């Protein structure tokens, strides 16, 4: 993760403070951050760890595309996103989204938009490790992003 890049994929631990620093400026009055962490229990099932894989080159492009969408929808916001790859333990940070804005409403809305779009169009996959096996998530029923929101070719 280089310090001057707003959108990145990183195989090393993410520090939310780095992203906050990237988006803060004199005319922002609000910064929201979203920190996605590895949760131990999901529907009563215990996760041991998670592995994230990314199509890195395309993922960065798609994160930048989300940034452009946000700039258009919420003028004046600045966004930084870093997504982790590799093997993560419980409580490790998988993704951080920081959004600065002159006013708070846009900072919340834009931030939530970013995570929803990440889950729709950014080529990153997670593999769950349970006590009784592993599975790549996303090609199962529990996650069917293609039914809605999937971008047409060339859509911005």
């Amino acid at each position, binding site marked *: 993760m280089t310090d001057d890049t707003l959108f990145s994929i990183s195989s090393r631990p993410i520090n939310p403070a780095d992203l906050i620093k990237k988006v803060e400026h004199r005319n922002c009055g609000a910064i929201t951050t979203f920190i996605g962490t590895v949760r131990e229990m999901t529907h009563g099932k215990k996760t041991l760890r998670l592995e994230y894989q990314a*199509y890195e080159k395309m993922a960065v492009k798609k994160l930048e595309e989300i940034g452009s969408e946000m700039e258009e929808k919420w003028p004046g916001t600045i966004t930084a996103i870093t997504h982790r790859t590799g093997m993560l333990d419980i409580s490790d940070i998988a993704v951080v989204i920081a959004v600065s804005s002159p006013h708070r409403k846009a900072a919340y809305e834009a931030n939530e938009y970013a995570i929803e779009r990440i889950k729709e*169009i950014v080529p990153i*996959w997670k593999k769950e490790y349970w006590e009784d096996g592993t599975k790549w998530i996303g090609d199962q029923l529990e996650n069917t992003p293609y039914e809605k929101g999937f971008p047409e070719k060339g859509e911005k």
Partner: protein
Amino acid sequence: MIKVLFFARLQDEAGTEALEAQKAGQTVQEIKAWLKEEYQLSSLDQAMAAVNEEFANNEDTLSDGDTIAFIPPVSGG
């Protein structure tokens, strides 16, 4: 020559991250059909294709040097 990339479950099924093939001039659809036959990729139909890092349609044709990636439903975040 084109480059083919696999991710997540598709990578496990294909047993490789990437391969190269003499498929320039073929459509996404045709390459999919070939891969399904050649590698028995059961989840290929649930994957989107991306050509040179942009989502592509089945009718798009690959040129020499292009990279086609198969993108299973994503699960980042």
